[in-house]
């Protein structure tokens, strides 16, 4: 990847209210208050039947949805200024892109699951933080781009994680792309994701935001290639293979014991064994942004969706553990 430039962090281009002064009595301290592994299969939103999504369901995948309910309860307590999401289905072949459009809105019809996901989105971007992340990533040597074109359809992995974490959409967001190539099953360069994670952390610190991060990844990723007539028929839902299940549980055992470095070191093996969606780099980005805390993660739930493994996991840095 080419090494590029850096713009100094500037002020005066916020599209939303700037955060309060650090140290004020009524405002939580800035930093990354928590990070979540936040899987995005559209089945979860479909099962929730929110008004933004056109298709209707009879439910399904409840255990994972209950895990998200717990995430939402904790998120309320964390009181973040912004949610930052890295998602594998905004695929950018050249570089790491940051959505800097102030108010992305439209209809996202998912080309793979159009029968499940036709979502009317209306997001508020924390433009200052978005631009600062792009600047910090460029300064760190990554190829980057700031998306300013409002016509780009927001993908379901971005919407999925953000909706399930905060269906009221009342917290500004920043959306990062996955630098990848869809046409030959490419894997993200995980070392670059570490750089992007560190750049994200630096941008959050620079702007004084209190952020919660979402890594929009499933785990094991081999799945059925046909679908039941009723997509939410849970009698058809189970791990694609015992092998995939075992490797997911090995990863989650490491998550539950920590430290996060051990998890990251295990990720390449897990990808090789399960075609894990973490190959898109979101989990590595998240742990790097958290600066590799030596803490366990809290697995809020695990379940399969069309055979893929999915877990909702929370990491809260020690300095925020009293929240």
């Amino acid at each position, binding site marked *: *990847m*080419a090494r590029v430039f850096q713009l100094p962090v500037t002020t005066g281009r916020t599209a939303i209210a700037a955060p309060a002064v650090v140290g004020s009595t009524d405002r939580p301290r800035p930093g990354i208050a928590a990070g979540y592994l936040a899987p995005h299969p559209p089945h979860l939103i479909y099962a929730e039947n929110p008004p933004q999504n056109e298709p209707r369901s009879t439910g399904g995948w409840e255990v994972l949805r209950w895990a998200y309910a717990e995430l939402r309860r904790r998120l309320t307590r964390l009181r973040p200024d912004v949610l930052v999401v890295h998602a594998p289905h*905004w*695929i*950018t*072949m*050249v*570089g790491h*892109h940051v959505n800097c459009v102030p108010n992305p809105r439209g*209809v996202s*019809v998912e*080309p*793979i*699951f*159009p*029968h499940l996901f*036709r979502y009317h989105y209306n997001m508020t971007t924390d433009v200052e933080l978005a631009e600062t992340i792009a600047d910090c990533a460029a300064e760190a040597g990554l*190829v980057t*781009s700031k*998306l300013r*074109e409002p*016509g*780009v*359809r927001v*993908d379901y992995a971005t919407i999925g994680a953000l909706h399930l974490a905060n269906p009221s959409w009342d917290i500004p967001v920043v959306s990062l*792309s996955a*630098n990848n*190539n*869809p*046409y*030959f*099953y*490419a894997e993200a360069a995980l070392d670059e994701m570490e750089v992007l994670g560190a750049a994200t952390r630096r941008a959050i610190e620079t702007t004084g935001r209190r952020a919660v991060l979402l890594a929009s990844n499933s785990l094991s990723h081999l*799945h*059925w*290639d*046909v*679908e039941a007539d009723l997509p939410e028929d849970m009698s058809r839902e189970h791990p694609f293979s015992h092998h995939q299940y075992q490797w997911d549980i090995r990863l989650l055992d490491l998550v539950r014991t920590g430290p996060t470095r051990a998890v990251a070191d295990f990720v390449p093996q897990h990808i090789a064994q399960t075609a894990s969606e973490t190959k898109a780099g979101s989990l590595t980005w998240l742990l790097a942004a958290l600066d590799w805390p030596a803490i366990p993660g809290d697995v809020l739930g695990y379940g399969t969706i*069309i055979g893929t493994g999915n877990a909702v996991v929370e990491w809260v840095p020690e300095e925020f553990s009293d929240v």
Partner: protein
Amino acid sequence: MSEATVVGGALVPGMPHLLAASPAPSWKRLAEAVLEVGSRLRAANPDAVLLLSTQWFTVLGHQVQLDPNPRGQRTDENWYAYDFGHLDYDLRTDTALAEAWAAEIDTVGMQARRTHYEHFPIDTGTVVASRLLDPDRTLPMAQVSCNLYADADALFRVGAAGVAAARRLGRRIAVVGVSGLSSGLTPRWISPKEDEISDPAHEQWNSRLLGLLAAGDLAAALDLREAYSRAAAADSQLRVLPWLVGAEGAVGPGEVLASGPIWGTGAAVVHWPA
């Protein structure tokens, strides 16, 4: 009747650079070649185009487009900063052929998924190819997705199902596969004049493949496919080729009208006359 069903076939690239206002020499050559292939195919008087684009990739079953008039604007999620990243489209679907194709796919034991949704995002490859092959939109299309997990044999059968559907309806069809060759994209922002195949080894593999296609040795090309895919990171493992063969769009020697780089990847325009 069956001999006249397929009036010709083509392999064309789907990268939007072919529509650039200030193209690299390679992009210009490739675009002109696609225009030429379009003229040839239209001159053979098909009723419709049977099309697969690797940029419409899916994972569940084989999706068949049934919207009679997909239209809209596509802002490409990677190339939005360039003129060629903004694409208007207004396509016509031969819905009877598409329905019949879906039925044939079901009949041979695979799962067809009928797709007809407002705001459904048509992929960049389909838009680019259709605009160059048929600038005046004289031909309706029948489109199928490229399932990421379908093996070469499955895509052969999807192609064959398309021809069977056309025969059943008495349609004359042109068969078009939209795919690149090697996928080694140049991972940085470049000016058009800098464009070259990102890896010399990829270029050699592309040439080897195109040599087989030009010689009409499709069996050898199919045998080479897996090794080529590993060595040159071929676009969707070059599964467009078994689809083209199954759909009888690639028969005998193909004429390679152009080949060259698009942002480091390999691309070629190949025409097979009936």
